[in-house]
């Protein structure tokens, strides 16, 4: 399917709240959260996107958190990128595992890294982080504590043996001003 055919199919087959535009590889769907599963089911059944590539989160800072999924048609060789914007305070989304089973791992990872709750996920356990880990490391407000604990090796000037005190006080990237390990 060409991007134009996909856009025509989406416009006639999905609610008008689902916006659709061509991007450089295929088609990008901007989906309201309540139509998330309908859009993915539509991509699988009507757009022939049988290959689930990946699903992840994006921290959009002030706007909220996005969940993005990329699916592909092996026969038609076309791509569909679906994204939905969730509220930052309580990000919730229906699990896509009923449509693409392979989404299970990706949703577990997105859950621990961004704190998105996936309703209906069969096994929402942490995937990569150790038990008892606090926080969501891929959110932009996550403090990179290791950066504060370790001295930046690049702080020295060429030929300099030691970093002067004044320069040492600059907080490293990912650590807020004045932050102290508790």
């Amino acid at each position: 399917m060409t991007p134009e055919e996909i856009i025509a199919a989406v416009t006639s087959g999905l609610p008008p709240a689902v916006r659709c535009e061509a991007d450089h590889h295929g088609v990008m769907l901007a989906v309201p959260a309540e139509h998330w599963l309908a859009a993915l089911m539509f991509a699988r059944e009507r757009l022939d996107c049988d290959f689930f590539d990946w699903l992840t989160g994006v921290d959009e800072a002030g706007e909220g958190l996005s969940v993005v999924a990329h699916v592909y048609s092996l026969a038609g060789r076309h791509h569909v990128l679906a994204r939905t914007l969730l509220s930052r305070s309580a990000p919730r989304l229906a699990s896509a595992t009923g449509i693409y089973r392979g989404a299970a791992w990706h949703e577990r990872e997105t859950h621990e890294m961004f704190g998105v709750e996936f309703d209906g996920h069969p096994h929402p356990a942490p995937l990569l982080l150790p038990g008892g880990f606090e926080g969501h490391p891929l959110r932009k407000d996550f403090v990179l504590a290791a950066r504060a604990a370790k001295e930046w090796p690049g702080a020295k000037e060429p030929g300099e043996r030691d970093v002067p005190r004044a320069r040492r006080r600059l907080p490293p990237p990912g650590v807020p001003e004045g932050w102290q390990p508790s």
Partner: protein
Amino acid sequence: MTGTTPAGGPPARSRGVIALLEENCTVCMLCARECPDWCIYIESHKEPVPGHEYGGGPDPAHAPAGRGRQRVRNVLDRFAIDFSLCMYCGICVEACPYDALFWSPEFSYAETDITALTHEQGRLREWMWTVPPPPPHDEGSPPPLSQLPPVS
């Protein structure tokens, strides 16, 4: 790369280990600053350059004409890469303006002690002997600058 090595060895531009040609390093610190993992440790000091000593006079800031101020150069004391932190992105190799860092395809340097994955200067220099010559340019790529006709 943990099983058998493919026949004919690893493919071109394989990222096995990073080698240091310390003769080319000017201690500019660019690699250590660009490294997103903070895994390059450099120590250095300044040394006066022989033959460029300060020429005399009571005040070094106002040296006699023809003999500028004392010239110094940076001398590398320590260069180490912690391969337990390194994510093999190759930014340091790209960032080095003096061709002191190279990719080597060697990959068998697993350790049981994590601290042994910090390769110091001597070991990084040894990896240089395993750096392959650069592969030929791809077909259709622009010719190297040295082969371009001179600008008239």
